[in-house]
């Protein structure tokens, strides 16, 4: 009964209001492309990215944020959270899997197979590093890489805007350290 009580209290005092269908659709259409792009950065696979984006909007539908919260920011936070979870639980993709997807990607992107394979491998390397980093560092780096401003990142991840600079600098240092340890090409 206690579990039910908590849920009820949440329901009664959380002041959550679901979005109307119209509001949801509008939010979806406005934000899907960007959220899907972030999802892709964390998954490096079109199907998984779609799935992750869908999961993110699913949360918007079922458990939306408080009324006064910026929806785009919230979506960024959710997609990077969910994406980070997937990243951590994903096993390293075997080379042959990357090969299998190669031809499909070629159709989509129009580039030569060698470039494809190279890119897949590089992506795996980057993801392997992110996988070893703390959640918030990954969120910050991915969102910054996606083009969000300091203010947007701060709002989305609920961090003080005045500390974004430091947090990025630290995350970059960690990334560099892990990358050089990995024994791959040294950063130029």
């Amino acid at each position, binding site marked *: *009964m206690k579990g*039910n009580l908590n*849920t*009820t209290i949440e*329901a*009664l005092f959380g002041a*959550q*209001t*679901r*979005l*109307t269908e119209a509001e949801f*659709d509008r939010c*979806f*259409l406005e934000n*899907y*492309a960007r959220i*899907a*792009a972030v999802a*892709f*950065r964390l998954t*490096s696979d*079109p199907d998984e*990215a*779609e799935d992750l*984006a*869908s999961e993110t*909007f*699913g949360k918007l*539908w*079922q458990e939306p944020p408080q009324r006064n919260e910026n929806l785009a920011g919230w979506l960024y936070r959710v997609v990077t959270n969910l994406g980070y979870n997937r990243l951590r639980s994903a096993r390293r993709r075997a080379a042959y899997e990357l090969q299998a997807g190669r031809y499909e*990607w070629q*159709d*989509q*992107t*129009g*580039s030569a197979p060698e470039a494809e394979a190279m*890119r897949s491998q*590089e*992506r795996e390397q*980057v*993801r392997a590093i992110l996988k070893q980093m703390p959640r918030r560092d990954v969120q910050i*780096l*991915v969102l910054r*890489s*996606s083009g969000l*401003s*300091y203010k947007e990142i701060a709002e989305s991840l609920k961090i003080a805007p005045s*500390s*974004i*600079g*430091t947090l*990025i*600098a630290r995350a*970059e*240092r960690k*990334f*560099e350290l892990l*990358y050089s340890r990995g024994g791959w090409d040294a*950063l*130029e």
Partner: protein
Amino acid sequence: MHLNENLLRAFIDDELPTAQKKTAAEHLAGCEKCSVHLRELQSRSRQVSKKLQILAPLAGEIRSSPQIALRSFVRQKEKPMSTLLKRPAWVAAGLAVILAISLLFPPVRALANSFLGIFRVQQVQVISFDPANLEQYNNAQTGEAVNAFFDKNIKVTSESKFTQIGSQEEAAVLAGFTPRLPAGSKVSSLGITSQESVEMSIDATMLNAALEAFGYPDVKISSELDGQKITATIPAAVTAAFGECPDQSTSPESMAGCIVLIQLPSPTVTAPDNFPVVELGEVMFQVMGMSPDQAAQLSQSFDWSSTLILPVPSGQGTQTSDILVDGVQGTLIREPDMRYLVIWVKDGILYGLSGIDNLQAGLRLVESLE
């Protein structure tokens, strides 16, 4: 005083406010240490950014357009029942009350009075539903919650009493209207059920929690409505029995020779103006088992101001159909044990005809009503 890392990093990304940016630039111009620090951060930032850019999707790697993605998302989420099962059962009890009120009155009186009806009944809409849909909410906790809700929020302000009476004239006086009786048929017994009023206090919090639990959180009962009343008034009814009618029906067989006719002025229900009737109606229909589309369609096309909803449990062979009776469209409900109920509304009077295995005889009675 040197520039801290936070400031330097923000400077690199041009994220400093103008004044601060100017100050920093000025400082850097004259400070070697900070310039070195800046270049270090810049270099690292460029390297890391280059690596992270590899993750960015190329054209074609994001397959769905937002429109297509939305369509497939919408198709996926059209599964209301699955969310219902995850909800705490006792919170759902509040919504079960909406149906419970409908089923408050004994079937013989044929008045499952929906509190969603407003104003005067002009027609009756029978809706079949499968009680199994409600089974999931039927447990000790929900039972408790429903009782608590009834105790707290529902008040019968005038209880009906049945009185046997002797004549049509007496009935007219006591009931406030002249009942119609069949010409030539002998009435076995005549009775009056006095007026009954039921008052429900709106408990917006509870109802909204219940709606949320059922998966309809965008149907909201405004807190403005808290404490306001919904009242249902069932006017005095005249019951006329024909044929061999035992005092207490012990078995269907014992009732086989008996036909009962009930009539009363249309019940009325009053509710606050901004009570979300159509939305709640939709919820009720879905709970009863309709698909969201059907429920929406029905609720929106309904004339809630003049239609009485009569939920009839289906299954176990109960059949409902339209029937022409007393010159109007009525509803016939039949049970497998040959029990039947015909309901119709004519000239502001709601009628119910009930019997067992004697429908034709009953209809003949109605034909001869004066």
